[in-house]
């Protein structure tokens, strides 16, 4: 196990930012840490990177305790903090060299090759001679990523690495994270669902400081999709009371007099029932389409329940 989090809590004055969460990240795994804004994602990451201590509970990173062996932990991780703080007055290479040095590399052994490799990896070649201040947001983000991985850490902790990027940059950074995930353990937070679907092996969804789901990305999609949505369109007008008589239906969304979205279970039987219903009413069934729930819906479902 690369990261083991055990009943970790953080309380700010009277507000519980993180409420007794536990999860594990295996070596070489990409874990998506997902939640709405203010759910406690950044706080958790700040605790794991030893920036702030937990109020209670504990966690280990590569076997080192985050409160007792903080320096060892910090040696093992590469961290991209939220909002990507950088020294804007420095040149890209100067900053990366500085990042290497504060990670404990002696200046004699720092080779230009290490810096060049990091620059190539994140795709900063064209901008490498500029001051960080002069870079666009996407390139600043790449500099942030480069500093996180320049010392070749075992674990990368990335706090919203894709926030504020345009769609092309998003795709680039996601691709990069996925590539990095082949060799490293990555914990990254986001509030964008597609990102998790695209990149992560596992997902932890957190809301109001509590974990509401912790599963494989693929499992989560099927597990929570026990309820099926079926979009139907009839030729003639149908009343909702009539539809309600169909077995296995427990909710109806009316779109128009002839179009409905039916919520139910046991997809196969339900679709047969709907067909039989249409036949019995002598009403042609123009559309019968099963919708798979996206992670987005699951996310909403999970996080909305908590806020009610």
């Amino acid at each position: 196990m690369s990261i083991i989090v055990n009943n970790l809590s953080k309380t700010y004055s009277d507000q519980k930012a993180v409420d007794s969460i536990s999860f594990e990240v295996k070596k070489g795994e990409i874990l998506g840490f997902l939640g709405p804004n203010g759910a406690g994602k950044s706080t958790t990451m700040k605790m794991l990177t030893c920036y702030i201590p937990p109020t209670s509970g504990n966690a280990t990173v590569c076997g080192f305790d985050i409160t007792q062996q903080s320096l060892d932990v910090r040696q093992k991780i590469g961290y991209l903090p939220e909002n990507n703080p950088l020294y804007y007055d420095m040149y890209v290479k100067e900053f990366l060299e500085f990042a290497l040095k504060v990670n404990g590399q002696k200046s004699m052994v720092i080779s230009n090759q290490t810096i060049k490799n990091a620059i190539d990896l994140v795709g900063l070649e064209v901008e490498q001679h500029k001051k960080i201040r002069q870079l666009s947001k996407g390139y600043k983000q790449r500099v942030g990523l480069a500093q996180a991985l320049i010392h070749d850490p075992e674990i990368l902790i990335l706090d919203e690495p894709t926030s504020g990027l345009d769609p092309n940059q998003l795709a680039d950074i996601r691709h990069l994270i996925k590539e990095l995930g082949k060799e490293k353990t990555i914990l990254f937070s986001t509030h964008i669902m597609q990102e998790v679907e695209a990149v992560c092996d596992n997902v932890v969804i957190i809301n109001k400081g509590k974990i509401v789901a912790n599963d494989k990305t693929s499992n989560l999609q099927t597990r929570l999709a026990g309820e099926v949505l079926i979009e139907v369109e009839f030729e003639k007008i149908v009343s909702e009371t009539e539809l309600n008589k169909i077995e296995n239906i427990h909710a109806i969304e009316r779109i128009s007099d002839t179009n409905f979205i039916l919520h139910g279970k046991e997809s196969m039987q339900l679709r047969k029932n709907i067909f039989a219903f249409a036949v019995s009413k002598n009403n042609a069934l123009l559309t019968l389409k099963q919708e798979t729930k996206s992670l987005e819906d699951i996310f909403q479902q999970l996080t909305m329940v908590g806020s009610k």
Partner: protein
Amino acid sequence: MTAILKKEINLFFSSLIAYISMAVFFVVLALNLFIFEGNILDSNYAALDTFFTLAPWILIFLIPAITMRTFADEKQNGTIEFLATKPITDFQIVIGKYLAALILWFFTFLPTLIYFICVKNLSLENAPIDSGATIGSYIGLFFLGAVFVGVGIFSSAITNNQIVAFLVGVFLCYLMYDAFFRLSSLPIFEGRLDYIIQSIGLNAHYDSISRGIVDTRDIIYFLSVISLFLIGTRTALESRKW
């Protein structure tokens, strides 16, 4: 630590901060020493008293201006999170930044030795400058500046606003330098307490070294005050963990 030291020095010398602070200190004091009313040429005494009385007052403003951004800026920009999550201790960060500012102070201080050389060469053979006392004063001034650097860094660590850091720095420097001295001369402390209060302040120790006797007690005093403020700075940094 050396990485941070180097980064801070680069920042001072790649921006105008270093050059301006050196120029301001040198020019203002040269004007007062050689040109303005009451200058050394009119007074007919080969002594740098004007310089050593005025310099601390300029430093009270100059050094907090140099140090105000050291931590306030990092806190404001969030880069402190970058530093604090690297495998270095908070104390290494503090020492690195302190030494960088100290080196800048040293280079600001260095050109003023020219005054000494000038006056030494200008003085008559039968009334030479008191080299011992002057060198003592220079040592005293350097330590005074070193304490102010510590105070300035501490002020910068307790806020994320540079202007607040500057004002607090000026206030604390004034307090350390002059306020204790003034306080001790109040009638209510007459008797035993006045000496103690006076020796808390920097002024008494600065004057003591200026007489040309480098007393270990004074040196220990300066070093302890510096350590105190550096420990305070680390505590201020660690306050995020409370």
